[in-house]
């Protein structure tokens, strides 16, 4: 063994040599100056000299250690030299795993596609018939939700051709009732007629707001249920118009549900199509490799 010259400087001659010093001395890699110092110390130190001698003998014995002669040849036979197949890539491992199941996956994809078509058709058919049923139920609902006769009359009156004088008051709200009163005052007339007209207008005014409120409530699909005081004095709860209460509202809600459920099914169907394409691609590529 050859070692490069060491830069290690041994201790002064009065200090014991370290193992590194002794090894460097055995290998002959100390510089000339360091060598002189080490040899001078060994002459004066029996302990270090003994260590050096035994270390040198050990290294010499190691370098002269006998070596085995092989009992047999280690040349490779053709069987031993057969190189293993390269480690398959992740893609190859995936393909090996999925290729045997391709027929099953294809059948499953066809089944899911048929299911998708049947569910969609069923959904379309049921929603069409449901729409017809909804229309009938809405009209029935309106009839059952009519208010009390007094209120009903006020309602019908309000829907009929309004009288001019009263109509102003009927259309107006509380703030406008003052204008109607003033109008009646301006037009003048006898006190009796004024009183009569006042009473008529006041009654009309009482009924009109109620009459106005009801159609307004019915017209708004999003109106919350409100309580109002009917001319009879009893609070009644107006019917909350559901989204299906009117044809326009019904169709919007129904179409929203229809779109939401079909969208989900469409997502599943698209996923199946993608899996089909992936499996087909993997299968074709593996077949191509096998052919090669």
């Amino acid at each position: 063994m050859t070692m490069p010259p060491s830069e290690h400087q041994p201790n002064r001659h009065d200090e014991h040599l370290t193992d590194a010093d002794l090894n460097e001395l055995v290998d002959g890699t100390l510089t000339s100056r360091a060598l002189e110092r080490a040899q001078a110390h060994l002459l004066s130190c029996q302990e270090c000299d003994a260590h050096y001698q035994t270390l040198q003998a050990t290294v010499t014995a190691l370098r002269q250690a006998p070596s085995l002669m092989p009992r047999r040849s280690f040349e490779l036979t053709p069987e031993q030299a057969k190189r293993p197949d390269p480690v398959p890539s992740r893609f190859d491992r995936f393909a090996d795993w999925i290729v045997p199941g391709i027929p099953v996956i294809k059948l499953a994809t066809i089944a899911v596609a048929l299911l998708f078509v049947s569910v969609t058709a069923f959904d379309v058919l049921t929603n069409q018939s449901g729409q017809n049923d909804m229309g009938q139920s809405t009209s029935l609902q309106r009839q059952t939700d009519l208010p009390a006769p007094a209120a009903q009359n006020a309602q019908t009156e309000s829907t009929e051709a309004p009288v001019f004088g009263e109509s102003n008051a009927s259309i107006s709200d509380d703030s406008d009732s003052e204008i109607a009163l003033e109008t009646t005052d301006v037009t003048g007339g006898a006190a009796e007629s004024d009183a009569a007209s006042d009473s008529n207008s006041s009654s009309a005014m009482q009924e009109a707001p109620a009459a106005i409120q009801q159609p307004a409530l019915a017209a708004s699909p999003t109106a919350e249920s409100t309580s109002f005081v009917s001319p009879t004095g009893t609070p009644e709860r107006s019917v909350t118009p559901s989204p299906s209460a009117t044809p326009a509202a019904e169709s919007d809600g129904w179409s929203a549900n229809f779109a939401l459920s079909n969208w989900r099914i469409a997502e599943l169907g698209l996923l199946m199509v993608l899996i089909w394409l992936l499996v087909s691609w993997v299968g074709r590529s593996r077949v191509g490799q096998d052919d090669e």
Partner: protein
Amino acid sequence: MVFRRGKNADPPDNSVQDQDERLIFAAARGDLDAFNKLVTQNERSVLNLCWRMLGTLPEAEDACQDAFIKAWTNAGSFKGGAVRPWLFRIATNTCYDLLRAKSRKPTGSLDAIEFETDPGWSTQSDAVDPVRFAETGDLSRMLESALTQIPDEQRLAVTLCDIQGLPLAEAALVMDTSLGTVKSRLFRGRAKLRDLISASPAGRELLLHGVRSSTRESE
């Protein structure tokens, strides 16, 4: 078991190194004959390395064969340079795998190493002093026994640098470590071997006698 004495390994010259390189590159291209030529040139040193690491001959032979099979399989990974450190690196890793699998140190028993003559083996051709041969044989036995009792890394350093004769730089490649670390392990291994052999008076005497004999010969 018959041993051939003398220097265990001649330092390879450039021509040998170039030849080994050509052989390994041919093996990488699938030339089994070229690889087997390389095996024949290096099987002795690889076997001895495995034997020093594992301590028993059957295990050493198995490890040696495995090492050459791995070298053939991975011939394509050889990038050039000295082939012997590359082979030794594969053999060392194979031995470490076996040691890890067994999770034990090689036995320190002298019975594991038998000096016996096998007709199938080549016999010693050098003329030597029988007394000296016997003493060397005893010292070798003690040395082999002591080798099994030092840590694996120190044993590998001593085997590569002192027994196999590898330069420090090549030993660092085999051990996949720095020059300083190889030197440190080598020095500590030598010191431990010296202490183990010197622990017995007979060992100390053999060591000193060996020194005295070599001193007389040099004079």
